[in-house]
């Protein structure tokens, strides 16, 4: 077999409904020299059988099974087994344009890029429509010249791309050299990996085309059950700070980090429901805003005054009054 150009790593958990569409769009990629590592994260539905079926048909597919440990652990497992020049981490309920890997790989090769980011949109499962997500690749914040690294971004380094892995191609040697791993937790487990890669990369490239489709409005999807893992985002942010410090980049990126931490905290607060919302609200107010370095900053430190005002409001407002005003 020809040298493997891209290792595609797919964590699979209870994905029987969409797995075929995902695997079809991966095995049908125009870039043929790939390996597809499916890590079955202890599914109890039909996923395992579907994987077996595909593996029997296509010898580029490898199936690894593990006891349920979360997508982060599954991706790390896949990463440790990968042998490709580049790595692609995809999700089992998404699907992709047939030339996604080809275009990303070629871009990476030509420019010796360590990360290639391409465009993505959202597929509404209920309506069958596609929604643009322009903020996943913020062109205005990128330089019109190359080489490009995160220091050439003209916006918050953590907001130019999104902290998910499926719209990006990573050079494997680069990832290994810096020992980057996914966090082994239920949600927000890719943020640390993606942001550290973006911060450490010397050459980042983009493909200006929508190549990946993220399924949303899926009732089984994790995002809608974040109540079980409402503190994961905080762990991710803390780990990010620790890693930035480890690589000597925290001081330089502190203002971006603090602003992003506020942004991400507010997003988590606004998108969670039920009992856990109260718990999160109080935790942010009493401890986490301080831990994340948000508290005690002057107003001009914040890029987004709307977010700053929300922060001030939360600090001044008890949960009861806040709940009423919502």
């Amino acid at each position, binding site marked *: 077999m020809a040298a493997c150009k891209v290792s595609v790593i797919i964590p699979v958990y209870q994905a029987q409904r969409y797995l075929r569409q995902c695997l079809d769009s991966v095995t049908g990629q125009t870039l043929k020299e790939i390996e597809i590592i499916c890590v079955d994260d202890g599914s109890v539905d039909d996923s395992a059988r579907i994987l077996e079926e595909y593996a029997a048909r296509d010898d580029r597919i490898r199936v690894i099974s593990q006891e349920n440990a979360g997508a982060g652990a599954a991706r790390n497992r896949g990463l440790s087994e990968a042998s490709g020049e580049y790595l692609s981490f995809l999700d089992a309920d998404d699907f992709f344009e047939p030339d996604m890997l080809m275009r990303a790989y070629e871009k990476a090769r030509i420019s010796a890029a360590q990360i290639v980011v391409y465009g993505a949109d959202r597929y509404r499962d209920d309506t069958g429509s596609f929604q643009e997500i322009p903020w996943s690749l913020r062109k205005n914040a990128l*330089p019109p*010249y190359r080489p490009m*690294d995160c220091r050439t971004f003209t*916006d918050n380094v953590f907001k130019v791309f999104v902290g998910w892995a499926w719209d990006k191609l990573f050079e494997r040697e680069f990832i290994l050299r810096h020992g980057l791993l996914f966090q082994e937790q239920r949600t927000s487990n890719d943020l640390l990996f993606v942001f550290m890669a973006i911060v450490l990369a010397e050459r980042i490239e983009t493909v200006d085309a929508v190549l990946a489709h993220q399924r949303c409005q899926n009732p089984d999807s994790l995002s809608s059950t974040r109540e079980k893992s409402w503190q994961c985002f905080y762990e991710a942010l803390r780990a990010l700070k620790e890693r930035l410090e480890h690589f000597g980049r925290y001081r330089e990126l502190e203002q971006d980090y603090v602003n992003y931490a506020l942004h991400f905290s507010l997003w988590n607060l606004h998108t969670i429901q039920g009992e856990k919302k109260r718990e999160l609200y109080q935790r942010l107010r009493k401890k986490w805003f301080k831990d994340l370095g948000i508290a005690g900053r002057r107003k001009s430190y914040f890029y987004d005054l709307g977010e700053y005002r929300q922060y001030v409001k939360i600090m001044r407002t008890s949960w009861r009054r806040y709940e009423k005003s919502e």
Partner: protein
Amino acid sequence: MVKVSIIIPVYNVERYLEECMESVLGQTLKEIEIICVNDGSSDGSPGILKEYARQDKRVILIDQENRGYGYAMNRGIERASGEYIGIVEPDDYVSLSMYEELYQKAKEYSLDLVKADFYRFKRDRSGSMQLYYNHLSPDIQDYHKVFNSSTDPDTLRYIMNTWSGIYRREFIVQNHIRHNETPGASFQDNGFFFQTFIYARRGMILDRPYYMNRRDNPDSSINSPEKVYCINVEYDYIRKLLLKDSEIWERFKYMYWFKKYHNYMGTLRRIKEEYKREYLLRFSEELKRGMALGELDKHLFSKASWRNIQSITADPEQYYLTRVYPETMNRKVFEEMEALAVQNQKLKDEIASIRRSKTFRIGKLFTSVPGKMLRLMGRRR
């Protein structure tokens, strides 16, 4: 013992190279070596260099495939063995006492670097030379005294160049001072300049002009309008160098932006019209980011410059329409007027020479005599 190693990075400069080499080889300081790094020239430059190397043992020739200015300079510095290092661009030349006098000062005060004022020059078509004296500093008090630029960022205000001085070689080596080697890039002396200043503990500037910097070479890299973003790439590189040590970054970030601003403005004037709008938009984004991170110090800039920064960040499109585009149009109109004036003069000269010619005079005789006769006849009638 070699007192000064003079490095000359050579790329397609056959027209000027001899003038340069003669001025270096004729130095009153004899203990020198001249390291010529031929960066893959495709003209007669390598032949000229070979001839000089044959005649004078002090000339060392390094040949390389075309790898760019920064790479060539770094090879030259690595090869150097002198106490001090000087740089001469191959289309420039130097006065014969330059290195003797700089070396003497450097030794007398144990300097890491010493730099001097210089001339920029142009020759017009008649061959006469226009000289522009460049003061490294507008303040005479800054000259002839030892400064510590590693703790005094204000010294980076001195006019930026790398060639009007010499550097202690050990100082260069110990601080790992190098040029950016990105191929195809330009302005790679900017990074070198920054590094020498952020590390030098003992520096001095002299108010004597030794170095002659040519401004009429049409092939000079600063005249290449295609290299639009080279200066941005170089300033990205400088930022990376400064950020290696957060203390250095904190100390020099304001001067970094001061230099960057002026260089970007220069680029905006230099590049072709079709690139200006996009360049300005990027410039505006970079300035806004710098402002958000508190990296610009208002007090370093003149009032006019600061107002300019405000305008560029507030509305770059408007700035382009009201400030950049009209300037381009003015220049175009002005150039057209100049061209028309030249043409006008040419036509006038042509008319004059026709009037002076024999054929015209004889012809005039033939046309004017019958003409006069006709007029006379008309009167009679």
